[in-house]
């Protein structure tokens, strides 16, 4: 079952922490659970990081009090060059409801540990900044993801403080509050800039304005309806989140999606990537005044969403992925449209890039702007486009292959410069790679089935699913329950990792460049807030 490298990890772990390890089980070849008896995860984390260069992917909790008498925290690790996920399951001390914080060592889990505090009422001991993050300050003491908290609880309207911002002092130092309603048509969040003249000293964020109880709601919907909720986690990543969710169910229930279904998912995942990247390239150009480039980019994006509709019936690729595959096959007309649209898009995309490249002033504004240094990106656990522009060489498609990705080789672009220009370069390279993948995948496995019938989903199964959305690493973790329902559904959008990158990248830049820096990451508020 286990590959050599994992057994090596276990042996090492066992030797090091023998008595602490209660059980090891490989639910699937690439998903291994280690249950420990102690709530102290710190030595294990230190060991995994030091000896195996492991990366902590995500941390989340589950209320298992009614069944196993405790809350569990789950720590998901991955190792470079190893397709397996190692999931350490640690009970939370039931007398104190405390767990040791990793955030001082690993700033990457800062928000995620605080989210556990807010949603489960557990305490991260030793957290450098244990204030609320996922519920606004003045929320009553409710713990929405505890099993004894009813989803439909009616809370009084919000009043009072949402967040206490650190004050900024000094001659000429000002604080500039922005949001939650922004100037443009974007999602809500509050930004508090401390500025000395034009340059930004630091930025404080207040997110979770769009928190709508999504993870809790997943526990109440039957699975076939929950697919649609997954599609509404983050509107521009409907297909990625929908696929991540269906994949999780399929893994839990050992459903084999036929090749054609996997191939079609791959094509649509790449169309979603192309579509959003092109929109972002235009929007970045727009934010430094190159309006014509944006006009072309948004025109191209419109042709792509029109293509989306032709392929799936929805401009946002909604209502197409399903547990067991995809809902419909493609006929020859659709495949022809796909080929023709993509051919002409590929040509026009080169024109667009050549426009941007030949604009000295655009380049001048984007280079050296909003720099995220590689070491910071690593420490903060930045993923996706923002990570790859700052030397973080991660891509779920390559590192934990899913759908039909093992069939198509592609290059993962990685740059070290970490500025807005290179975040745009990553997108340009990825669009080109995606066009290539779609070209190869389009007719792959054409004669075969695209969907299998779905049996009753067995209860009590856990599954982790990962998808490289256009923004970065998406993780869904589920535990199935009886009657086609879920006990728990954890959603990690890459945006949750990446907000600290925005904070880091804007420092020392002029406030007028904030929009373009923010756009170069283009994080999802709804994906963060859920």
């Amino acid at each position: 079952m286990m590959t050599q490298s994992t057994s090596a990890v276990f042996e090492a772990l066992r030797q090091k922490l023998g008595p602490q390890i209660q059980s090891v089980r490989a639910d699937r070849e690439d998903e291994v659970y280690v249950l420990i008896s102690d709530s102290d995860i710190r030595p294990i984390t230190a060991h995994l990081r030091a000896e195996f260069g492991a990366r902590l992917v995500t941390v989340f909790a589950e209320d298992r009090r009614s069944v196993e008498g405790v809350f569990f925290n789950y720590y998901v690790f991955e190792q470079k060059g190893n397709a397996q996920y190692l999931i350490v399951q640690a009970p939370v001390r039931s007398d104190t409801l405390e767990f040791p914080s990793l955030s001082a060592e690993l700033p990457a889990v800062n928000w995620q540990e605080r989210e556990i505090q807010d949603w489960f009422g557990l305490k991260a001991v030793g957290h450098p900044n244990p204030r609320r993050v996922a519920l606004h300050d003045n929320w009553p003491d409710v713990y929405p993801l505890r099993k004894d908290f009813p989803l439909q609880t009616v809370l009084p309207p919000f009043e009072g403080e949402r967040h206490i911002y650190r004050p900024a002092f000094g001659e000429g130092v000002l604080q500039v509050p922005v949001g939650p309603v922004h100037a443009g048509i974007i999602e809500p969040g509050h930004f508090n800039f401390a500025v000395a003249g034009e340059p930004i000293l630091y930025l404080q964020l207040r997110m979770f304005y769009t928190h709508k109880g999504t993870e809790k709601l997943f526990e109440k919907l039957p699975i076939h309806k929950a697919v649609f909720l997954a599609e509404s986690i983050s509107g521009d990543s409907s297909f990625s989140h929908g696929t991540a969710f269906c994949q999780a169910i399929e893994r839990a229930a050992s459903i084999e999606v036929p090749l054609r279904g996997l191939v079609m998912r791959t094509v649509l995942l790449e169309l979603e990537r192309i579509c959003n990247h092109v929109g972002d390239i235009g929007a970045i150009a727009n934010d430094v005044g190159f309006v014509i480039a944006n006009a072309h980019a948004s025109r191209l994006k419109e042709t792509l969403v029109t293509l989306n509709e032709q392929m799936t019936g929805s401009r946002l690729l909604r209502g197409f992925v399903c547990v067991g595959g995809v809902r419909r096959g493609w006929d020859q007309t659709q495949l022809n449209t796909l080929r023709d649209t993509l051919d002409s898009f590929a040509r026009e995309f080169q024109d667009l890039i050549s426009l941007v490249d030949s604009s000295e002033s655009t380049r001048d504004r984007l280079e050296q702007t909003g720099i995220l240094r590689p070491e910071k990106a690593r420490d903060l656990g930045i993923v996706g486009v923002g990570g790859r522009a700052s030397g973080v060489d991660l891509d779920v498609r390559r590192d934990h292959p899913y759908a039909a990705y093992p069939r198509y080789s592609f290059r993962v672009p990685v740059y070290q410069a970490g500025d807005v220009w290179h975040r745009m370069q990553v997108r340009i390279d990825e669009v080109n790679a995606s066009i290539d993948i779609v070209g190869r995948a389009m007719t792959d496995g054409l004669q075969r089935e695209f969907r299998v019938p779905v049996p009753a989903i067995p209860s009590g199964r856990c599954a982790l699913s990962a998808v490289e959305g256009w923004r970065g690493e998406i993780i869904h973790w589920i535990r199935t329950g009886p009657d086609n329902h879920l006990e728990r559904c954890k959603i990690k959008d890459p945006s949750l990792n990446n907000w600290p990158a925005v904070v880091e990248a804007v420092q020392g830049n002029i406030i007028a460049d904030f929009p373009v820096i923010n756009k170069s990451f283009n994080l999802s508020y709804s994906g963060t807030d859920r």
Partner: protein
Amino acid sequence: MFKILQKTVSTGTVTANYPAEPAQISDRFRGRPSFDFEKWKDARPAAEVCPTGAISLSDKVDSRKVTVDYGLCVFCGLCAEASFEQAVRITQEFELATSDRRNLIFTAEYTLNADGTHRGMRKVDRQWMSAETDVESMGKKARETIQKILGRSLAIREVDAGSCNGCELEIVALNNPVHDIERFGIQFVASPRHADMLLVTGPVTRNMELALLKTHRAMAEPKVVVAVGACGISGGIFGENYASLGRVDKVLPVDVYIPGCPPRPQALLHGILLAVGRLAERLHNNSAG
């Protein structure tokens, strides 16, 4: 510079002329599901698969009341797949915006067989009337209103009160060269103080309620409010819970509802033009009063 001009010339005009001409949409587009209530022999499979409860049943011993609410519909098409004899068909209709929430709700009553299938239809409450007014003349009228009364410009403030960002994507698309909403003199503005119309998306979250109210308060009279998408109209798939208040009209008076998940740009435009009509009425009443 030369390159830019060359590209502009070679691209030519791409702007669509909706609503003066019919919208160009893909023949695969899933629009309004249409119900043949007479033919419908069993509503249970459709209600069972409907992700948002847009099709709901209330059963008595030997009768059933079926409610269809386009304000909840996410246009997934599952109801059509689940129903036999083409009782439910997916159409290409998208001009569903209305100023009366009740216009989106339909009911049918059936007597039942022992196995729960429909024996006969007792009555239908309102069949779908296609678009509230003639779309083309509505466009013309809206243009006139904007030209004459509003000084050639209508300003919209958009507020995401908790949406997934899907509706925002389509609202942004209204500004692309293809849909180009500025051809009507309509523009999106940064300040609610400049705005005539408030376009609201999302189920209103507990955390956004106040910001939404404040934005509305900051707008000068007369003003209109448009609720966008299934979530804005009804709470959609999120509904009401500890963090979500659900529909926009629980918080603000709403003048126009635009169904969709999300509504496509032409559907948004249709709803916005409808709301311009409401604004014109209000302006007229104000000056008369």
